[in-house]
């Protein structure tokens, strides 16, 4: 069956250039990391879309779950003092 199998799944992240971070593009099937990189280039970067590609075995990714979304992100939601708008500046002073 190995010959006809679709091979493991890899997630593809492409860095578009400039100072931008890698961004998820999609996934590819490949027999190993090297082939995953080549497939990722052929599938997701046919028009110079990137300057760097990461491929990661899909199974190696740990993601937060949608069910926990509320409580998981809660600590960041109730702290307005982490934003610049929270602080007062005397009138006429340019920051």
């Amino acid at each position, binding site marked *: 069956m*190995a*010959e*006809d*199998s*679709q*091979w493991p*799944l890899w997630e593809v992240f492409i860095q578009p250039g400039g100072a931008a971070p890698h961004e998820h593009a*999609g*996934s*590819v*099937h490949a*027999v*190993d990391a090297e*082939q995953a990189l080549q497939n990722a280039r*052929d*599938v*997701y970067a*046919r*028009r110079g879309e990137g300057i760097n590609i990461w491929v990661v075995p899909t199974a190696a990714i740990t*993601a937060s*779950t*949608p*069910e926990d979304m509320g409580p998981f992100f809660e600590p960041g939601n109730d702290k307005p003092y982490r934003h610049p708008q929270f602080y007062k500046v005397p009138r006429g002073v340019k920051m």
Partner: protein
Amino acid sequence: MDSTKATAAQTPEDGKRNAEFEARIARGETIEPKDWMPDRYRRQLVRMMSQHAHSEIVGMLPEGNWITRAPTLRRKMGLLAKVQDEAGHGLYIYCGTETLGVDREELVTQLLNGTAKYSSIFNYPTLTWADIGAIGWLVDGAAIVNQTMLAKASYGPYARAMIRICKEENFHKKQGFEIMTTLAGGTPAQHRMAQDALDRWWWPSLMMFGPHDKDSPNSEEMTKWGVKRKSNDELRQRFINLTVSQAKAIGLEIPDPQMRFNEATQNWDIGPIDWDEFWRVVKGDGPCNRERLAARNKAHAEGEWVRVAASAHAEKRRGKTEAA
């Protein structure tokens, strides 16, 4: 795969989740792979997305037929790049479908054994070089109208694949229209060739949008769930309105004696579509249904050695790494 489970009787819990899901759709939120979704939403998406992916893959065949016979190197490079894009588009959508818990292998098997559907347009033959122009202009043009709508679909991975595809497909349409423009403005024989291609591809292109709204069983549900944002007839009309002036601009005639501009609606009204032909081709009796499947199976079988070699190579490298 979740979708093989029979839909169990609705529990109060299911009812609540369903209501929450529909509220999310109503708020215009995007549904992501790990979010809870009704089983039917998942199954309908697998059906729609896999048919779409198969269409991209089978869509390579009518055009691949002309790569070696393209009239100039410029045309050949353009066509090669376009056909390669179609392979990429098929892979984007297979990858999106896999996020719903189905394996690509399973989908490919369904395509190869003839149980999967794909767009009927690809069951028509490409008889002359002008057909390559007509496909880029009309078939990709129709696909862009449809896919621009799907780029706002409620399912995130599908929408994202459509955004990527739409960006690339404008080139497909323009390369097709350039071919048609050149032929239409060429010798009388070339002009006739362009007109003949338009005559043969016009009606099948209009059928690409699917049956009229009243005869489209899946439309209502897909619209309710925000997968489709416009109806088959609305999209078809948009395509017609765009295309009529393009045909005029290059001196070709739309093969519809009943076509009239409707001042009241500002739309081009068309004559009746031959739905008997549509259903005949959908059900497997189009001019090239068998040929397409045979070509796909042949290509898959002939790629066997590549898959075997890649597996063997990877195996060997793994052995070396472990030994080191």
